[in-house]
């Protein structure tokens, strides 16, 4: 096993997609619990920057989703209290809490996804399927920082020319708008050089352009892909055959613990902890090869 980010982006993409889908659609507290534990640890080990702030936001989402369900869903038999003739049931609260945890896990998962699926990886996937769209995305990514820099340059120049005359809000907005306008002109007029540069290198002479990427599909990618497909297939089969379903209404039941279900839990845990395991393994190996810090 190699560090997770070294895998082919398509494998990574599929991995995250399936992991999230299972968490979202299994409706199984054990699965959600596994995803929650795994994604918290993974997020901490992969995306430490700004995680605290993210957690604050996630907590708000959690509270909102957990509250929303019992307010709108009046199924369930164990009535806790009655508000405006509407019963608030224990089952709805529990379901809400599970949904909240599920959403939290998925949000964390997408946070990790966002860190690992850098723009060039996502571009590789888009580009393979849609070469022209891939090109548009790549061009946009190239232009965004260029525009950002130009905006700062224009602002600086205009400040010395007295654009922001008085420091009040209206002048400020007016100034910002004329900077936006200047940027538009700049981009459109100079973009023609970019367009010419594209034509000069044969853009559009062939209807089907290739979309090149430095990423390769190695043997280890094939192994990982097979592994992911087989294990997720197994779990999805379980979902389809209602082997994993946990009913909350009318009365909450315990999640299933059949052999099949337990196998699913183990496999899912294996999948969900994969990035963390890869990271720990990599640490140990690095330490072996290069010595202590």
């Amino acid at each position: 096993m190699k560090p997770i980010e070294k895998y082919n982006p398509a494998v990574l993409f599929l991995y995250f997609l399936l992991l999230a889908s299972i968490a979202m659609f299994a409706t199984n507290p054990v699965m959600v619990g596994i995803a929650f534990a795994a994604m918290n640890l993974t997020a901490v080990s992969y995306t430490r920057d700004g995680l605290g702030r993210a957690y604050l936001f996630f907590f708000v989402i959690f509270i909102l989703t957990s509250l929303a369900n019992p307010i709108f869903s009046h199924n369930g038999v164990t009535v806790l209290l009655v508000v405006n003739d509407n019963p608030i049931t224990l089952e709805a609260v529990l379901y809400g809490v599970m949904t909240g945890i599920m959403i939290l896990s998925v949000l964390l998962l997408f946070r990790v996804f966002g860190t690992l699926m850098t723009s060039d990886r996502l571009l590789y996937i888009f580009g393979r399927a849609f070469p022209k769209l891939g090109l548009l995305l790549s061009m946009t990514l190239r232009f965004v920082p260029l525009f950002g820099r130009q905006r700062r340059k224009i602002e600086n120049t205009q400040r010395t020319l007295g654009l922001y005359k008085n420091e009040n809000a209206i002048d400020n907005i007016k100034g910002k708008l004329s900077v936006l306008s200047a940027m538009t002109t700049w981009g459109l007029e100079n973009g023609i050089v970019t367009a010419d540069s594209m034509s000069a290198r044969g853009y559009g002479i062939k209807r089907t352009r290739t979309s090149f990427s430095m990423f390769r599909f190695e043997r280890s990618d094939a192994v990982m892909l097979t592994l992911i497909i087989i294990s997720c297939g197994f779990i999805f089969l379980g979902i389809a055959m209602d082997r994993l379903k946990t009913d909350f209404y009318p009365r909450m039941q315990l999640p299933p613990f059949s052999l099949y279900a337990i196998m699913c839990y183990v496999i899912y845990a294996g999948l969900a902890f994969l990035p963390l395991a890869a990271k720990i393994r990599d640490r140990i190996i690095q330490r072996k090869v290069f010595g202590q810090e």
Partner: protein
Amino acid sequence: MVVIGNSAIRKILRILIPFFAVPAAVLAGVYVFEDKMYAYVSLLITILSVVLFISGFERRETGSRRMVIVVVMTVLAVVGRFIPVIKPVAAITVIAGVYLGGESGFLVGAITAVISNFFWGQGPWTPFQMFSWGLIGLGAGIFGKYLKKNKPLLYAYGAISGVLFSVIMDVWTVLWNNEDFSYDAYLAAIASAAPMTVLYAISNIIFLILCFDTIGKKLDRIKTVYGI
């Protein structure tokens, strides 16, 4: 795909299938599928409709200059999303749609969603944003002739597209959060998102008032000078 001779019918179908049949299928899915399956189905269908549109774009030829202009407009929208509180994304998409046509409008909206989410966070909401903003741009392209001439209509379109965006995104919120698609929850979501919806609508109108003519003039100039 089935070959349809009449280009007008083909064109109508191309618009009808992804943008009317597909949402209808989402709603049908809501009733047909149990549990959370319709959340999945709606996500799937949203992705498919975006894919369908993009495939059309892939098959056509697009000149390098048009590509660059689409990119410039997209970058403006992406950079604009960093403006606090009021966001010009939809307004710029509308301008692109009106002046460059529906396809370019769609692309500006959809690509803005993908790229700006590199900064704002990718997630299952990305396809929905692509779809909503894309639709706003496409609509602006289809009604471009009228929107260009009739300012009140333009502002109305801006307001409607703000509401439309909110409504589509709320469908997703509800499907994702709740075990059921209930109208109560949906209405509640819409109600709780109402301040945002109003903000979207207002910022669309503000940015259309401020930018439509300025940017439009620049686009018109570019189109004539560089022959697009």
